[in-house]
């Protein structure tokens, strides 16, 4: 079978005297793909299809019960010597048609062979089911009769008139969405709340059922039969599906595309209806359900169904619109061809297409879809592993095997054993080894600069909090905030009448004790000692009270700028001891305090840090140089500013328990970086921003490995 160009075949006698012809039940349709003519043979019993080139079809069409294959072949050679298939090609063609069950032949004998093939196919199906663990299908029922019966009712809607209704409804819904956009956004935060998941799923099932019926009705409307409906376990979530593959036999590609789109058309329509419901109901069950349906219809439609990179509706629509079936296989084929032809120099390698434009499409599609698939599946994997560790691990192993180990093994096997490479094997092996080698060397040996960012806040290097040392009512702000003050300058005055009363009471008590002392001394000094102690304690008390009276005048602890943005509001209010009233900030130097989580801090400890710079929010264009840096080697959990935590709009996870939102979910280390000249940026204490640490150049591979291990460690404590 090596070369289909051969005119004669050694196996010709196997078919030469056979009388073989297409089964009478086989339907033939002519289709155009990319302007080329094809014939699609359909086996209505098994719902299997086979596509033929016109030359091949011409031959097949000639087969008749009253002629042997040999006679037909000679006939076709005579009429069309140039195009007629060679004997080998004929044998292969017949073999393929036979396997799809399209041929009628005279030996009904080999039922064992038939059975064996049936078993083989079943095995393949089961195997692919397990390999497609995330998309297992369970066919349940045959909806064809139901569809047929319903068609008179639903059918008329699949028309320009129906489209008009659809357009109006969706347009109206869009307007509602725009009108209610803020509310819509607010509610989205509660979407993944545990209580909502049930409704989310309910919405999903309703929508997807309608979606599938969309496919089914469109397909039925255009004359295709729909015989299988069932449940698919998509990432362990049961979801309905129908098998509308009979639409592939439609000769109009627009109809095919429309059947593909049908699901989304229905879904968007339902979403539009749901929008009206949502807008016109108050919070409650119906409202919730409507909201969820809107969400699913839009997000899932855009992300999954319409996306051609995964093999959902969008892919098939794209195939139809490009008029290019089997885009996926062909793009993989084209990628392989590119490697074989250009890297390995296999002269016989054939591209699946001849047109240049198609080649570009195929290559682009191939690369994009691979990347996208890897991303999506990695996401799904992590998602599943988070929930069910065991299944996640099993899936990861399966994925690892089927995506990495198996293809790699196949590739190596191909490299060393394929007869195709016989003549260029050294080049193929060389190129591959070279490529892998260069890649590994690059990843392992070539250090690449890298950096990471951490958020943090600006803090003055030298500053002091002005905290009330005693309680009292704030009476007066002695110095306007913003002014330059020196140490000892009185800034605030508190008053505490209780304090002066207590003072007076203490003084009175002192004179009383003094009197008692005198009296006691005039008698025989019996009880003097306790009185002496009393006097001493009262005197000490007076000292304390004096100090506290002095503290009512709050003075600047250091030289600097007096900052008290909220002090005006506190005037006249009773303050407990320890209230913070403002700060005095020494304007000399500023620090940037950034909490760095455990995963990253290791890099800081291990690496020499090159230069780093700070960019403040709102002043991203101006980088502020960092002159020196200290990593405080102590684990902390209290953020320097709550603006850095999640609840304050930052990116560091904080615990739910702390209402202040300043306690982090996991411990961090503090990095204090001294800021150099700020340039244009105005440094203010408490301003938040991002610091970029430029680490010493390090190759990529060790970095990736470390990241992966950290990920596993953090997520699964492995």
């Amino acid at each position, binding site marked *: *079978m090596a070369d289909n*160009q*051969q*005119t*004669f075949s*050694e*196996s*010709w*006698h*196997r*078919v030469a*005297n*056979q009388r*073989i012809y297409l089964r009478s039940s086989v339907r033939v349709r002519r289709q155009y793909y990319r302007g080329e003519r094809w014939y699609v043979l359909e086996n209505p019993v098994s719902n299997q299809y086979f596509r033929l080139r016109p030359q091949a079809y011409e031959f097949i069409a000639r087969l008749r019960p009253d002629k042997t294959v040999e006679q037909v072949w000679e006939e076709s050679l005579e009429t069309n*010597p*140039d195009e007629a298939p*060679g004997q080998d090609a004929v*044998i292969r063609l*017949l*073999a*393929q048609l*036979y*396997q799809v069950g399209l*041929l009628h*032949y*005279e*030996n*009904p*004998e*080999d039922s*064992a*062979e038939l059975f064996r*093939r049936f078993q083989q196919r079943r095995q393949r199906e089961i195997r692919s089911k397990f390999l497609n663990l995330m998309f297992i299908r369970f066919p349940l029922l045959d909806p064809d009769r139901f569809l047929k019966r319903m068609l008179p009712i639903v059918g008329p809607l699949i028309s320009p008139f129906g489209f008009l209704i659809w357009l109006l409804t969706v347009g109206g819904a869009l307007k509602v969405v725009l009108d209610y956009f803020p509310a819509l956004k607010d509610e989205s935060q509660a979407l993944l709340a545990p209580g909502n998941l049930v409704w989310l799923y309910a919405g999903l099932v309703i929508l997807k059922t309608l979606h599938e019926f969309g496919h089914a009705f469109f397909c039925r409307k255009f004359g295709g039969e729909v015989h299988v409906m069932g449940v698919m376990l998509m990432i362990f979530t049961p979801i309905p599906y129908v098998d509308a593959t009979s639409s592939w036999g439609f000769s109009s590609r627009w109809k095919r595309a429309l059947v593909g789109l049908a699901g989304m058309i229905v879904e968007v329509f339902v979403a539009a209806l749901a929008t009206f419901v949502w807008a016109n109901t108050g919070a409650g069950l119906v409202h919730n359900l409507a909201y969820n349906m809107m969400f699913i219809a839009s997000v899932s439609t855009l992300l999954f169904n319409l996306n051609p990179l995964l093999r959902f509706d969008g892919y098939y629509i794209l195939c139809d619109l490009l008029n290019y079936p089997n885009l996926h296989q062909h793009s993989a084929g084209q990628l392989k061809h590119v490697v074989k032809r250009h890297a390995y120099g296999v002269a016989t390698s054939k591209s699946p297409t001849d047109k240049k434009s198609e080649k570009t499409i195929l290559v682009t599609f191939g690369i994009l879809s691979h990347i996208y698939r890897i991303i999506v599946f990695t996401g799904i994997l992590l998602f599943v592993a988070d929930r069910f560790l065991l299944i996640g691990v099993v899936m990861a192993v399966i994925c690892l095997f089927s995506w990495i180990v198996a293809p790699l093994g196949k590739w190596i096997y191909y490299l060393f*054993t394929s*007869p195709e490479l*016989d*003549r260029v*094997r*050294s*080049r193929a*092996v*060389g190129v591959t080894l070279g490529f892998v080698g260069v890649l590994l060397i690059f990843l392992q040996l070539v250090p690449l600069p890298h950096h990471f960012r951490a958020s943090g806040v600006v803090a003055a290097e030298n500053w002091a909090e002005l905290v009330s040392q005693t309680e009292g009512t704030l009476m007066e702000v002695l110095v306007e905030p913003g002014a330059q003050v020196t140490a000892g300058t009185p800034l605030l005055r508190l008053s505490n009448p209780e304090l002066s009363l207590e003072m007076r009471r203490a003084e009175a008590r002192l004179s009383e004790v003094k009197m008692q002392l005198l009296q006691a001394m005039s008698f025989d000094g019996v009880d003097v000692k306790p009185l002496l102690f009393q006097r001493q304690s009262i005197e000490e008390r007076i000292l304390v009270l004096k100090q506290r009276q002095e503290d009512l005048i709050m003075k600047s602890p250091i030289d600097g700028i007096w900052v008290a943005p909220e002090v005006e509001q506190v005037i006249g209010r009773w303050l407990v001891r320890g209230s913070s009233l403002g700060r005095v900030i020494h304007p000399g130097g500023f620090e940037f305090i950034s909490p760095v989580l455990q995963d990253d801090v290791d890099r800081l400890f291990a690496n020499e840090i090159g230069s780093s710079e700070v960019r403040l929010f709102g002043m991203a264009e101006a980088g502020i140089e960092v002159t020196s840096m200290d990593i405080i080697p102590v684990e902390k959990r209290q953020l320097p500013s709550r603006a850095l935590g999640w609840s304050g709009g930052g990116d560091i996870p904080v615990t739910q328990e702390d209402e202040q939102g300043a306690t982090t979910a996991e411990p961090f280390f503090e990095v204090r970086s001294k800021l150099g000249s700020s340039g244009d940026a105005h440094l203010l204490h408490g301003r938040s921003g991002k610091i970029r640490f430029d680490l010493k150049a390090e190759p990529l591979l060790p970095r990736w490995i470390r990241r992966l291990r950290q990920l596993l460690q953090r997520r699964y404590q492995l």
Partner: protein
Amino acid sequence: MASDQFYQVPKPRPMYRGLDSVMHGWIGAYQRRSAIGRQLLQDAEAVDALAPRFEVMNDHELRAALLEFRSVFLRRPKHDAELEALAAVREAAFRTVGLKAFVVQLAGALALNRGHLVEMATGEGKTLTAGLAAVLIGWTRKPFHVMTVNDYLVARDASWLEPFYEFCRIRVGKVVGGASEEERREAHRCDVTYTTSRELLADLLRDQMKNRDSATRSRRILKQMTQSRMQGNQRGVLRGIHMAVVDEADSILIDEAVTPLIISSPRPNESLKKAIYHADALVRQLSERDHYTVQSTYKEIYFTEAGRQKIESLSHDWPGIWKSEARREELVRQALVGRVFFLKGKQYIVQDGKVVIVDEFTGRPMPQRSWRQGLHQAIEVKEGLKPSDPSETVARMSFQRFFRCFTKLSGMTGTARESARELWRIYQLPVVCLPSNKPCIRRQHQRVITTDEASKWHAVMEEIKAVHHQGRPILIGTRNVHVSEKIGEMLDEAGLRYQILNATRLSEEAMIVARAGEKGRITVATNMAGRGTDIKLDPDVSALGGLHVIATEPHETGRVDRQLFGRCGRQGDPGTARMFASMEDEIIVRALKGSEKSYPMTALSSLLPRPWMVNFAQWISERRAYKQRLAVLRADRWLEESLSFSGQS
């Protein structure tokens, strides 16, 4: 008997894929475990212990006992009966052919009866072993064939054992080339039929062709029922294929199993002949480099752009088939292949105005063979002969597939363990190695590996002279007739007398080989020549140190080397053997440098010590051949599965 004319070829044994094949491999390893061999020897000892019971019987009693066993076996061969029966059969063999089977031979016979592939050292009496087993199997009256490599051995073995079989109430028949249909039918009807695999497969295919027009089973049965009244030539000749013992199993099942047997009939095709004349004329105007390039390792020809244009312009006015570019180039390429790769005197000779293919290894002309459609005619035209009618394949089956169809297959050979895995994988035949009866005292000398061929031949001649001087006989094994002739010339120069095996008659070949053990003899033979014939030593030769075997070149597989060495040191005889190799030998060049100069392994291997290189080259070519066999098998199976509607082979 109408019943034995209807038979169905059993489905071939399954081939396993993927994990199944791994599992199957493990089962095979278990089936080959050494305990099997020990058990066989133990059982054989038991048989030996039973001997006195039958020794005391007179011929009449023994015949009666054998008849008793025969009826047991006809019903169901039991294990107990197996041992006793074998003891009786052994006694029968002793009385008829005068040889008392050794324990090892008894073990071999048991292994054959139990469906193993027995590795027995050469010269251990495989013919008798097969005979013993054949009686046990033949008693069951199922279609049973003993296959060996050539017609000479078929005739020799069958007639040698005939009295023995007769004594055991076994009818024995033989089918050799040229036998008439009636003779064949008669022979296949016997309990034991000696034949070659070619003849048997050909009979099978011809039988199938006769049945071809009755497509369905019911129709076939109807036809069978009415057949006894039909013309004789309408009936099949076989009773069916069921059990077989294959002698020299490794070469039949492995080395020669790739080429399919093709039954063809000539069919006039004037347009093809005309096209071939055209092509021949056209090819004469093409020149290498300008119009085409030659890839000699793969025997392929590539056209250059200029060549394509030239072909097109030259064939512009020619009819039909020349209009299509693909067909046109195919024709021209074929003519070129015939011109470039097929040389008169090497691949073929011209005899009586006909092109006769020469077997490249044995140098034997093969008049019945022809090359594939078109090529044969192209070569005929090249030689200025009238092209013969192209033969058209009417039936075809590969030997691999054929042997896989047997319900019960067993075999014998001197060398099998190297291919044990392949034999299991393809035929599900477990190999069991039996020790030799007497310890082998053959001395294997160190290999001599030279850098170039000239110094190798020099070393070979030195060795021949030295050994010849001692008076010891020498057997020189070569890869093919050309090398044999070359050695002949050198021996002529040295003034030594020698025998060279280029005979066309197999019996003559066997005689020469049989006499190779005489004092002072020098025999040059291809390794295939005279297989199955013992080299018996003169008594005084034994005293000198026995036969010395020289291998002048390593073969593609170590098995064949071992076969050659096995020609000396038989049955405890003394003997020595030495292998000569050079870095310019064909297999080394083909394996290491063959496909490409820059093959990374080549660079690597040139750093290796030379003995390693030889081993490595042998490993590579073995591996290549194995892959090729698997590929053939796979293609074969693909056809079978996908064309099962055609219901034939």
